[in-house]
């Protein structure tokens, strides 16, 4: 008797299209499709993909409760022993959807669930404790390894095998500590580690100190009518032609653009180069991502003091945490020196 597997994927992997179809509602296929075909091969004999549930990434992101409910219904109809989602690599919306549906299915049906994401995918922080997230590379180039690892862990979960550490099993830890017997005693491990430390060699601590990455909120603006406000976006809005060649994803730079005298963003002067969302609207009217027109209006009305002469733009998709932090620091420093009183940053 083979185990029944349901596979969840997005519109792109189901072959329905790219960003233009990101709004499709959940649907089912009665067999494996897309990466599920190879996944099914890897599970052959022991488990079988009996159905696939497909949902548009934007639909899921913008209608989470509805999408979740509908998908759970569809998943349930296949009577699965396990739900496998993705792999989602570094796609933010897809990763969130994969994590969300896995967490929900695990809770509702009590079945094992797993997905596979790149470590910086926002879905990881949000759902790692609620499902198993295999660690993948940052793009579909890592598909083969991802599928191998997914199949392997799935079978272990289905067979109810005793698992080793997260590292040993290839998934991103769920934030739980478990005791295991090592090869060496604690004393030996301590002396080994100390010698490495002294010699300046790489070593791995057995427990990382907690890092607190939230900051206390800044004090509010006292007098808005006199305040200088800056606009920024990670929605990839740039002057037409992308003069600074900002990358469509995995941005390594940001752009700074002079908007003094500019009243409105149009298809002629600005565009979106962001690879991670449907750019139709933004290209027609970039104001829907970077709201210059209404800001000018509000400025003229005296609601706030002045709109800062420069906007800062980058692409948020696939941007590494390290880069994002650096952008924040650099942009922040420039704006601080310019005496800006507050910032509005839009993201897609």
């Amino acid at each position, binding site marked *: 008797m083979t185990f029944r597997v349901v596979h969840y994927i997005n519109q792109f992997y189901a072959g329905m299209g790219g960003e233009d179809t990101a709004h499709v509602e959940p649907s089912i296929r009665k067999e494996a499709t897309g990466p599920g075909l190879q996944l099914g091969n890897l599970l052959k004999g022991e488990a079988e993909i009996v159905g696939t549930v497909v949902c548009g990434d934007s639909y899921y992101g913008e209608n989470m409760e509805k999408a979740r409910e509908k998908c759970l219904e569809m998943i349930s109809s296949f009577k699965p022993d396990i739900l496998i989602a993705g792999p989602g690599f570094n796609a933010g919306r897809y990763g969130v959807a994969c994590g969300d549906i896995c967490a929900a299915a695990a809770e509702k049906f009590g079945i094992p669930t797993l997905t596979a994401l790149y470590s910086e995918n926002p879905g990881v922080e949000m759902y790692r404790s609620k499902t198993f997230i295999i660690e993948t590379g940052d793009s579909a180039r890592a598909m083969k390894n991802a599928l191998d690892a997914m199949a392997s862990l799935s079978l272990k979960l289905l067979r109810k095998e005793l698992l080793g550490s*997260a590292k040993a099993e290839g998934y991103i830890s769920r934030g739980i500590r478990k*005791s295991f017997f090592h090869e060496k005693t604690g004393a030996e*491990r301590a*002396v080994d*580690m100390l010698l490495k*430390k*002294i010699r300046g060699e790489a070593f791995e601590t057995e*427990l990382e100190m907690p890092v607190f990455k939230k900051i206390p909120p800044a004090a509010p603006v006292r007098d808005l009518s006199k305040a200088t406000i800056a606009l920024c976006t990670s929605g990839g809005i740039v002057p037409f032609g992308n003069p600074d060649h900002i990358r469509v994803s995995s941005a390594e730079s940001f752009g700074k653009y002079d908007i003094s005298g500019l009243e409105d963003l149009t298809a002629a002067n600005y565009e979106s180069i962001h690879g991670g969302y449907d750019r139709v609207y933004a290209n027609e009217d970039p104001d829907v991502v970077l709201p210059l027109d209404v800001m000018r209006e509000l400025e003229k009305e005296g609601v706030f003091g002045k709109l800062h002469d420069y906007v800062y733009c980058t692409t948020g998709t696939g941007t590494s945490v390290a880069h994002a932090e650096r952008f924040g620091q650099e942009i922040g420093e420039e704006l601080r020196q310019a005496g800006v009183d507050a910032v509005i940053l839009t993201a897609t």
Partner: protein
Amino acid sequence: MKAKLLHIQGGIRMRLEIHNALVRDVQWGDTTCLRDGTLSINRDEAVGVVAADENFSDVKLELARPGESVRIIPVKDAVEPRIKLEGGTSFFPGFCAPMEPVGEGKTLVLKGSCVLTCGPIVAFQEGFIDMTGPASPYNPFSGTNNVVIVAQPVEGLEKHAYEKSLREAGLNLSVYLAEQCKGVRADNVEVYEKGTLSEENEKYPGLPKITYFCMSITQGLLHDTFLYGADMKHIVPTLVHPNEILDGAMVSGNCVSACDKNTTFHHVNDPIVLELYKRHGKEINFLGVIPTLESTVLAGKERTTWMNANLARQLGADGVVISEEGYGNPDTDLCMNAKKCEDWGIKTVVISDEAAGTDGSSQGLADATPEMTGFVSAGNVNEMIEVPPMDRIIGFPKSIAFLSGGASDSLREDGSMYVELQSIIGSTNELGFSKLGCEWI
């Protein structure tokens, strides 16, 4: 005076020979002796050694061997039978032995045997030992031939007096056993030798200098540790030669959470001392051991940790291994020790257990500091373990309700238990005695 001190010759290089006589079995017999690997004990004589203390109304001795279906509960301390052959009198200076320096000459060890002290709980938090089954891998005592003292205090005996009596009973019995076996031939001899700091520094100028902070429970209220008989909560940290640790200078008076208690057995077998000694002259220059305290007040924590760091600094240490005893508020001392040393460029690695909750998802330390970048885990004290009933119980099974890691419903009718690792003595020992640790899952 002169005559008494004659046997203490010593010299610049402290040299200690550990003579291990292997014990493979323990039995009651007509004479107390070790023959062909069997430790034979004259029961009446042995009981008499313990019962000499008038604080006990009843004394029983029981034997527990590896692999037997036996549970010993509650265990207060574990003591390895040892005796000075040369270079000292008796064993445990300040207790069974007179006040004299140790760490030189020859010491006999009845290796593979152990004395365990057991008595009814008087709001203590001791642990249990299973000689077989799922709990047995969690401490060395399931692998030793144990002589268990089960001693009842006289009615109305004050807690501190009872603790002292039982502690001394364990030391006295272990010394008695070793003493009776003095003539036996050792199966193997280990030599521990190290000169003065100047000598060793000159011999090994290029090797990293390492010292070791042996943090010890010193909370009072029956949670104490003794160095040469001195109650450590009243001392300031100092430097001792590693041989002194191996030769009984430290005794445990600690009745706190069983899992990470450094029993007297653990002290003479200190795995950090042994590991550093192994590498001395090869990979490191082992400067010595700094037995130190865990004060319960902030001023005490600051004083102790500053003095620890200063000692390390004065010694020119490049690195320190820091072991904790206990968890909770000593986690603060642990962080301070790590931070102060690291701030002065002295590299540190700490060994500590984690209190990560029964589900493993809580932060394991009560305190944290970014400088504690080298952490070796001794396991999660709250992890649950299912243990089956044993055929024989030595001690007081109902006391499981009062052990850390146990609860009134931990013990079932059939004798099986569902308890935290905390309640198994030595399970998360922070000297890094076992191979246990934690991983992320």
